[in-house]
């Protein structure tokens, strides 16, 4: 649905530009990680900004960045539903029960395992993108977007305790993937 360009208050558009456009790279980054597709991410970000503009009149907080993220997340959820309807493979690749699984038992076998290497940005992006939802989302919001636990909880609509356990799990998963990558490149 196109927004009405002629009757809108240009002052509102100016304020919106100044407040929201500086976060375009952040919103796009989150979309890339949530959707794992450059084209879908572009569409979702555009839709996110148009929705944000429509709701900008009622915007009183939280901070602009988490507000945009919450809108983006809703846009992405619609995209997940569309994908689920058109394909047999589910997007949510981890069942709910996985959240309760014990943490990094993998390192029980290799207690002295230690990261030896650093990766370039592309490898890091690939490792992070390979994390299963909802751990990937939590991880990106914390490690790449620098949101506080409380902000992540608001964006993801879960209690702070869940943010903490998801983040613990996400980091444990990434650590395993990191070590596996080192093994592979040896």
């Amino acid at each position: 649905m196109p927004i009405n360009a002629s009757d809108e208050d240009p002052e509102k558009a100016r304020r919106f530009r100044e407040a929201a456009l500086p976060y375009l790279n952040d919103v796009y980054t989150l979309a890339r990680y949530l959707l794992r597709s450059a084209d879908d991410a572009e569409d979702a970000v555009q839709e996110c900004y148009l929705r944000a503009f429509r709701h900008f009149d009622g915007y009183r907080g939280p901070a602009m960045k988490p507000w945009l993220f919450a809108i983006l997340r809703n846009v992405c959820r619609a995209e997940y539903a569309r994908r689920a309807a058109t394909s047999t493979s589910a997007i949510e690749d981890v069942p709910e029960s996985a959240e309760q699984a014990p943490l990094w038992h993998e390192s029980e076998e290799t207690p002295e395992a230690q990261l030896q290497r650093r990766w370039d940005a592309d490898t890091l992006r690939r490792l992070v993108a390979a994390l299963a939802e909802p751990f990937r989302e939590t991880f990106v919001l914390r490690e790449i977007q620098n949101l506080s636990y409380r902000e992540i909880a608001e964006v993801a609509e879960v209690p702070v305790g869940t943010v903490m356990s998801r983040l613990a799990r996400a980091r444990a998963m990434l650590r395993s993937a990191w070590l596996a990558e080192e093994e592979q490149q040896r």
Partner: protein
Amino acid sequence: MTCDEAEILLHALIDGELDAGHAREVENHVADCPRCAAALRDYREMSKAIAEAGAGYTAPAALRQRIEAALPQPRQTTSRRAVLRGFAMGSAVSALAATGLVAIVLRNDDVERIQLEVVSAHLRSLQAGHLTDVISTDQHTVKPWFNGKLDVAPPVIDLTAQGFTLIGGRLDYVDARAIGAVVYRRRQHVINLFVSQTSSTERRAAKTDTIQGFNIRRWSDRGLTYWAVSDLAKDELADFGEKFESAMRAPG
């Protein structure tokens, strides 16, 4: 504290989310537990590696333009029409002269609007965490960072020896276009040097204006327009502009 508890809480410790009492408990546990200590060290290392490598993405310029195009444009038609109406009523002014004058009026309008945008971009950059996308005092790091992000990468010149320290670069957004900003510091003052492409290659001498308390010095040379913005005094900003231009003309 048990390992099970520490496994969760050490993340909050890394992220600075723990109160002092709990932080001490986790630290005490980690001091006696090699396994949790190894985890803490690796997780810290991962966070640092991600922060330093930069795992974010840059939005494509086309996406920016599509969003921009979908938003209501700032209304300049009002002032344009007002100007035209003014001329239409003044019968002594010929149509031809009116056209020329309108062009001049509009161009000045444009400059003013862009200068306001440049000041807004400068102000945004001073908010926490927005100053630089790439932090480096080395021009050979900042310059290649822009390549591929912009049609025209801005020239990056180290002026540290001349009293203006290069601190990094940033992608910004002025006049509905992605634009490169090279960031310098002099004492506690930040200078944003915005660089955009222009259709004319002729050199235009520097002019300085003051907008909202900031000084803006703009000049054009070899197809690029420069806007240096800072709260520095006019003479110091002029000094910066002159040193930049003379460094640009220097061979090599």
